[in-house]
Structures are given as C-alpha cells and as structure tokens.
C-alpha cells in the first residue's frame, strides 16, 4: 500500500474542514477523517503483519522514494517498520480521541479542528519519513499548530506557555538541524551527500564526527521528549493547553522526540551513543526521580500529569541510553504506553474541568459519586501510570528495568534501582490525587448536580482504555511488532560495542 495516504487523508480532511461552515459539519468531517485514518492505519498494520509473515525481512516496508530536491539529493522517502507502525497506531488513537473530546468546541471551531488535523499530519509524516530532510520538515510542521492551539484556546497563562513551548521546541529543532547538517556533509554515497536514512545507516560515519553531532541531534530531539533540564516547557505547555492539545502534546509530540532520539541519533550515530550513554542515563535518572518528586508537590491535576510525563519519558531516555535490546524495546513500548495513558489522563482531566471548572485537587472531592464513569477512567489512568499489571505501563516499565539490569556495571545497576524507586513515588502522587479528587467527601456541593460523561467522551476514553488494556494484557503483540525494528538498531550498536 502507498504510505502517502497517511499524509493525504489528514490533508484532505483539513482542506475539507476549511471548506465547510459551522461546528456540526466541521466536527463531523474531522471525526470522519480521523476515523478513516484509524481504519487505514489498522489496514496498514494488517498488511505489515502479512508481509512479515510472508517472510519479508527487509528493514523497512512499503518504501516509496520520490526525488524532491534533486540538486541537493533530497528525497521524499517514506517507509515503515514496526516502531513506526506502533507510533502511527498511537497517533491515530490519540487523534480520534482528541477530536471526540473537543466535540463541543464552539470557539473558532473550524480553525481548531483544522489545526488539530494539521498537527496530526505532521506527526504521521514524521513517523513514516526515511529521509532526514522530510523528517525534519514534518518535525517542524508539528510545532506551530501547537502554539496556536495553546495560545488561542488555552487557559491560564496561555500566551506565556505557548511562546515558551514554541521557542523551546524550535530551539530543539534548531539543534537537530545542526546535527542533521553535520551528518549530511559527512556522508558520501558515491560522490554526493545524502539525507537518506537507510543509506546513512548503511555507511559508517567517522566516530569523531559522530561525537561532534550526536549531542546536537540527541539534545535537540531530547527537548521534545522533556530531557532534563530542557523539560520546563512540558508543565506549562500541557497545563495551559486545551484538552485535545494536551493529549496531542503529551501523547504524540513528546514521542516525536523519543522516536527521533532512537531513529536518528542512536541509530545513525551508534558510536557516539555508546560514548555518551552514561550522560544520557544520568540525565534520564534525574528526570525520572526528580520529575516524580516534583509531581508530588503539584496541586493542579494537569500539572501533576505533566510532571509525571517528565518522569515517565525519563524511562524512554533511560531505555535508549542503556543500549540493550530489551531496554530499547522497553523504551519504545514506554513511548506507546505513555502516549495512550497520558492522553487518557488529559482527556479525563479535561472532562472533569469542563464540569467543575477547576483543576485544583483541593477544590475537588468525591467525584466518584456524581461521575462514576469519569472517575473510573481516572482511576484506570492512574493505575496505568503507576505501572499496574494488566495495563500497558507495567509492561513497558518492567521491560525497561529488565533491559537496564542486563548491564553489569554497578553504575547501571544504581541507575536502574533509582528508576525502580520512582514507581513508589509515582504511587504516592497518583494515590494522593485520586484519594483527594475522586474519593473522599464532596467538598463543593455545587458539584452534586454535575452529570457523567456523554457518548463522545465515553467513546474517546473507551478507545484509549482499550489500547492500554490490550497492550497490558497481550504485550507480545506490541513486542512482536517492534521487534524487527529494534533489532536493526541493536545490531548497529552491537557492532560498535564489540
């Protein structure tokens, strides 16, 4: 099948949104578009499994390679492997859920949904790109819509947060650009420089070059995935954004970073990744534990989830830094799992906020009585985030731990133990929030009149919960999906460490 459809459908949807008038039509089109996309992604998933079952062992499937800027040897080169498909699935889920939760977006609805879909376009393109330029292009496509979404439809100090987010992410991509340029000029595929990921992976970049440009690429992408100390856009951005945008931010755009760190930085520059792994691990551990402790002190539900995202994305970086097969598997699984889980969390927080108009834990209480569904979903999200078996979080985190423990040196052991320790802290803040907001006595009697979730919210939450539970119960599905992808990465790394 032609992967360009993945970009085409959102594009058509976006254009269609521009053409129609009125919230009703707009949202219908958005829903149809994202639904079609979801179906398409499942079809892709199916075909992918068919191919693999058919014994197709090539690294990337469904490749298309069109020449784009011939003089600079820039191609529009797309293709997928398991990792990309996992990410695309995640995106599709989050997008449709995002559309559903913003069903009643009266304010400038056309613009809102247009930007939403446009944002998803960026994400899809990023995940299927096999040409560094294309990849970078889509990476930046996905930045500005966030700025507008937060700035126009956000709440709280939205302008500040939006500006901060946009600038830090652009800073990130600026660093990425330098890294990419460095790689580009140090590739020489029969006489010409190349942006082609597969070609670059085939050749070996000299180690000193890698050591020079790996930090650029890694930190650049790291900013997207809340690498300490560049994580400060996360709390403000997430908490000021409208519900759907927060879901996007935490669910997808932070994954862009992780994916980039893995697919570009680590895969293309394994020597440097090996060199710098200790630093990465240290930063990741700081992010994990320190993020968790910072979360413990938050009083705003969105801030809680935002900081916990910092902590959870630390696992991704940790897994990548450990450079063992299992750890990298874990990192990828953690990306997917965290994407779904945090999107669910934001969705449900949004639902609560729509009803109670507050996110302060202190002003909430006993919601279980008025809105059992929402509360249940909240608890599910919480339990997933504190790594309860049966939900995706557990699988991912345990895989990361297992993988990190395979490194024998005491340093890695201590890092792993620190990471493990965070699960206790996670339990503390999740249970504090749940105990105060969902359980406990009702603090505000006006809340007594509030209703439970309606169909669109139920559907959105249901989809995400489904994803979480399926991964949690049958992780081997995800594992088998990403396995070939992580294998090719690990082979390159293994070649280095030998």
């Amino acid at each position, binding site marked *: 099948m032609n992967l360009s459809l993945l970009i085409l459908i959102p594009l058509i949807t976006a254009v269609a949104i521009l053409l129609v008038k009125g919230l009703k039509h707009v949202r219908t089109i958005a829903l149809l578009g994202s639904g079609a996309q979801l179906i398409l992604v499942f079809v892709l998933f199916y075909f992918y499994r068919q191919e693999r079952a058919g014994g197709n062992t090539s690294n990337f499937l469904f490749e298309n390679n069109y020449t784009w800027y011939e003089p600079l040897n820039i191609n529009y080169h797309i293709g997928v492997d398991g990792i990309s498909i996992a990410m695309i699935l995640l995106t599709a889920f989050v997008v449709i859920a995002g559309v559903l939760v913003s069903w009643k977006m009266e304010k400038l609805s056309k613009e809102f949904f247009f930007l939403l879909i446009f944002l998803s376009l960026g994400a899809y393109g990023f995940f299927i790109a096999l040409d560094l330029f294309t990849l970078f292009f889509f990476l930046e496509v996905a930045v500005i819509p966030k700025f507008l979404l937060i700035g126009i439809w956000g709440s709280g100090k939205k302008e500040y947060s939006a500006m901060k987010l946009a600038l830090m992410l652009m800073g990130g991509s600026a660093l990425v650009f330098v890294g990419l340029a460095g790689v580009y000029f140090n590739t020489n595929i029969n006489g010409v420089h190349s942006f082609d990921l597969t070609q670059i992976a085939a050749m070996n970049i000299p180690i000193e070059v890698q050591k020079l440009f790996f930090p650029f690429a890694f930190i650049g992408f790291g900013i997207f995935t809340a690498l300490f100390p560049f994580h400060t856009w996360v709390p403000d951005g997430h908490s000021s954004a409208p519900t759907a945008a927060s879901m996007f931010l935490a669910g997808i755009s932070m994954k862009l970073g992780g994916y980039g760190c893995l697919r570009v930085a680590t895969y293309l520059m394994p020597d440097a990744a090996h060199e710098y792994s200790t630093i990465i691990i240290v930063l990741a551990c700081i992010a994990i534990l320190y993020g968790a402790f910072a979360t*413990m*002190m938050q009083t705003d539900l969105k801030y809680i989830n935002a900081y916990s995202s910092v902590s959870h994305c630390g696992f991704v970086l940790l897994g990548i830094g450990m450079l063992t097969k299992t750890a990298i598997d874990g990192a990828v699984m953690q990306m997917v799992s965290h994407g779904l889980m945090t999107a669910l969390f934001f969705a449900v927080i949004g639902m609560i906020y729509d009803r109670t108009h507050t996110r302060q834990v202190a002003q909430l209480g*006993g919601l279980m009585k008025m809105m059992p569904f929402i509360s249940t979903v909240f608890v599910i999200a919480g339990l997933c985030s504190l790594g309860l*078996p049966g939900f995706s979080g557990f699988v991912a985190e345990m895989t990361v731990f*297992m993988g990190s423990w395979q490194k024998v040196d005491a340093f890695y052991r201590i890092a*792993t133990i620190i990471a493990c320790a965070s699960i*206790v802290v996670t339990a503390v803040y999740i*249970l504090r929030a749940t105990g105060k907001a969902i359980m406990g*006595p009702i603090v505000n009697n006006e809340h007594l009149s509030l209703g439970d979730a309606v169909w669109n919210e139920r559907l959105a939450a249901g989809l995400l919960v489904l994803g979480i539970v399926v991964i949690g119960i049958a992780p081997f599905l995800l594992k088998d999906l990403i396995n070939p992808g992580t294998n090719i990465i690990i082979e390159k790394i293994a070649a280095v460490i030998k």
Partner: protein
Amino acid sequence: MNYSSYITLIPLLPLAGFLLLGIFGRRYLKNSSGIIGTGLLLVSAVLSLYTAYNYFFVDGKVGDSYQTITAIKFTWLSFSENVSIDMGIILDPISVMMLVVVTFVSLMVHIFSLGYMKGEERFPTYYAFLGLFTFSMLGLVVSSNLFQIYMFWELVGVSSYLLIGYYYDKPSAVAASKKAFIVTRFADLGFLIGILILAFYGETLDFKTLIENLTSQQSSQFLAITTASFVGVSALTWGLTLVFIGGAGKSAMFPLHIWLPDAMEGPTPVSALIHAATMVVAGVYLVARLFPLFTLTPVSLGIVTVVGIVSAFLAAIIACTQTDIKRVLAYSTMSQIGYMMFALGVSGNGGENGLGYTASMFHLFTHAFFKSLLFLGAGVVIHFIHSNEMKDMGGLRKYLPITNLSFLVACLAIAGIPPFAGFFSKEEILLAAYNSNKIVYGVALFTSGLTAFYMFRLYFSIFWNKQTEVHNHHGEAPFSMKFPLIILALCSVIAGFIPFGEYVSSDRTTLESHFDPMFSIAPVAFGIIGILLAMWMYKKESTKAEKVSQSLGGLYKAAYKKFYIDEIYLFITQKIIFNLIGRPAAWIDKNIVDGLMNGIANTTASVSGFIKGIQSGKVQSYAIYFFGGIVALAVVFLYLWK
C-alpha cells in the same frame, strides 16, 4: 489426567464475575450481582476441590513424592532468549492447598456478604472487587513464574486497595487504602529488585528452572550468583532478602506492618478474606515457593526468622491493649503470620529438618479457617451493634448464640487448645523452633500464652462482661451470615486432624507427624493460663483491667500506642520526604531550571534594551558607526585575523 481442560476456569470465573459486574453491574444487575458472584465462585471452589482430590489422591504422587505439574504455560512477554514472563499454572502441594483455601474462604465470604452488605449502594461493585481479588489471589498461588507472581502480587495489592477504600467517602478509609497500597508498594520495590537480581544470575524467571539452576552447586548460574557480591554480601543473599522484603510487606511483618490495622477500615468480610485468610499470607507463600533457595543462604533465613518472631511477639503485646475488636484481630493475624514466618525460618530443607516448612504451611491452612471465622463473627457483632469498640459491647451471648459458640471455637483454636485445629499446627511450629533454636522457642511459647490471653479478653468482653441493652433488636443475623460461621467452625474443629505432613513437606515426600503429648504440655499450659487470666480480668465487669494497665504504666501506654511506629513513619514521610525532597525539587524546578530558561529570554530582552542607543536616530552618528565599522573590519582582517 489433563488438568488444563478446566484448571483455567478456577481463576477465570472470578475474573468473569469481575468484568460482568464491573461493567454491567451498576446498570443492569443491581440485585442479582451477589448471586452471580457467589455462583461463579461456587463453581471454581468445587473445581479446585476436584483438582485437589485429583492431585493428592489420583495422580499427583509419582513414586513417593509429589510432582510439580505444569498444567498450562505460555510465553507472555519475552525479555531475552531465556528470560521471559510466562503465564502458567503449576500444581504442587502448596499451590493446590492454597487453591482450596482461597476458593473456600472466598466462597464463605461471598455468602456471608450476601447478608452483611445487603442494601449497600455499590453492592455490585463490591462483588466485582471480590471477584477481582479472588482472581488475582488464585493467579498468584498458581504462578509458574517469578514475574507472574509479582504481577498478581500487584493485582491483589490493588484489589485490596479498592476494597479497603470501598467506603470512598470516608476519609479514614481513603487514607487507610492509600497507606496500605503505598507501604506494600514500597516493599514490592525490594521484591522487584530481588527479581531482577535472581533473574539476571539465574538466567530465567521460571520457578522450576530457576531452582534447578541455582540449587545445583556446580552450575554456572550458582557460581555466578554466589561469587557476585555487593558490600560483601553475595548476590543470592541480596536477591532473596529483597524478595523477602516484598513478602514481609504483603504479610504485614514488622516493620512494614503499619498498614494492616488501618486496613480494617474496609468492610469486615473483606478483612476476613484479604487481611486474615489469604492475601496477608502471600508473603509466607512466597518464601515457601522459593524455599529451596532460601535454604542456600542462612543469612536470609535468619532474617526471616528474626522478622517472624519479632512480629509475632510485638503484635501479640499490642493486641492485648487494643480496644477496637477488628484491630485486635488484625494484630493477632500479624502475630500468627509471624509464627508461620519464623517456622519457615527455622526450617531446613528435606526430611526431618523440613518440619518447620510443613508446620508453617499447616498453620497457614488452619489459621485461614479460624481467623476468617473470627472476623466473620466480629462482622456479625458489628452488624448487630454498629460499632467496633469493646466498650459498646458485652453480654451479647444471649442475643447471638451461634456467633458466640463459633467465636468461642475459633478462640480456642487460635489459643492452641486441643483438639482444635490451631493446636496441632502451632504445636508443630513450636517443635520445629525447639529443634533449631531455644530462644525462638521460648519467645514463641510466651507469645502463644499472650495469644490465648488477648483472644479471650476479646471473647469475654464481647459476649460476657457488662450487659449492654440493645434496642431495635432485629434477630441475630440472616441465614446467609450464620451459615458460613457454622461451616468455618466445623472446619476449625476438624482441620487439625488432617495428616498434613503426608501431603505438604519440603521435599514433597511424606513427613510423619510426630505428635508428642509430653512436648505439647508446655504450650497448652501457657494457653490455659492465658485464658484463665483473661477470664479473671474480663469475665465479670470489673476494674481489674485498669489496675493492671496502670501497674504496667509506660509499657502499657507504649503498646497501646503501637510502640509509636506509625508516628515514626509519619515523621519520615511528611517531614523528610515531602519537606526535604519533594518541596525542594518543585522549588528548584520552578525557580532554577525554569528560571534559567526564562533568564535567557530576559537577558536577551535586556541586552536589546541596552544597545538600543546605537539606533539614536542621528544620521551623523550613523555615519560614524558606519565608518567605525569599516575601520574595525579593516584592522581585524588586515592585522588580527590573518
């Protein structure tokens, strides 16, 4: 014969119940939910009995030892070529025994709850949670894989959390559930790291293979795990000790026991099921599961012993001072589990040395019956009085005849008076302790006396002592609540006569039960003394008790305050963790890290403000800058930057 045909149903039926009631219960099955849950559980109870029959009497025994039968096993998540999480069901004596216990007690609790929880608003949710718990517990006991056990371990933890917090609008209940979860979670951290260590060196997560790998003295894995060491302690010891920390957390062993008394905030039948019979013994079960490994390291076993005995003794003392009947029972539970623990600790592996192992399991078995009986009895009392406090009670024997009798039976059983179940198991434990370590034996003996004392203190102050006049007197209880009492009372009477050693022993062969009347004089005597003392103090309404407590003074106060352990924890969490780590972290993030980012922005702005003078609007200064620039460039590129 093939177990896999039906064995999976045993855990899955409760799960089905959970899903069914959890999803549709609130809407459609409001009233029928109890019946549904109970019915499903009945089936799985029957099935597990059938399994037990098959295992013990039909095909479990090959030669003269019981085999480990792997009924089902499939790879769930593979980490590396031979390390993987498998989902499986293994049958061996202890798992089968636990199957029976769990399903049976759970069934009793289900039935009891039909009456006890009648008219609750979240009746279906309650049964859903019960189903979830039963499922997780069953999954735990039949696990074939170290990581599988950890997963179900977490699941029982969360279902206990949900059930403790069942009355979610009671802040105390919420706090208790939180406490329970977090404390056990903390212990599980140790468990997890232990697993990581064992799995890394044992190169597998599968129990069978793991034990084989590590017990064969010359296997590479054994050498690896014994030679590798951290701060002079071998990796094996580390691993097992950390795993034991997990067990201790679940089993409310000192010093991780603080959550258990608070857990009594949950509905009483739940306490009977989770916090008396099943979940809290998971720790014991875990140690028993890994027993062959524990026997490899005296250090870990020693730790087990010490923790067990200390918990037993401490809990007994505290139990003597509590006034909330459920708390008394909670501490007694803790103390009894302490017994099981140190029984394992003092045990050896195989043959006669394995007595402690058998005894521990035996006590676990019997304890399940009489302790759940006690809780359910207490449940009836609370249901009747609508209070947990002893002072509101007294002389209830004429209102609650059946409860009275069954409660008495249970008290006798736990006090170790022959011929009740507790006598046999406790006597074996003491014997095992006697054989290995006299000090342990002494403490245990004294503790059994204490046990008798506080149990009968409880008994007398509920059913005898002062008269309380009862208004709105509505019968003792519905049949659904009486029936389990009767059944469990019967079990508490007869369970002791099961020749337990034939079925469960450390080396799977028959272990002759050496019942020695001479030896059992001492414990029985202690028990009777305890009972008499309690009778003297509490049978009639009097002030003896106050006098005694005054005479004890500080000790009494300390015990009454549970030796201030909660306060210590509170201090550590609130003052240290929150104030010294959490707040600073948040502050740093807000002011320093984020401040840095904003700082960059502000510096840029201020710089641009600082240099705005260049653009003075005066064309002549522009010209000067212009020419200055040229001169500067010329100088730089002609003389400096060659």
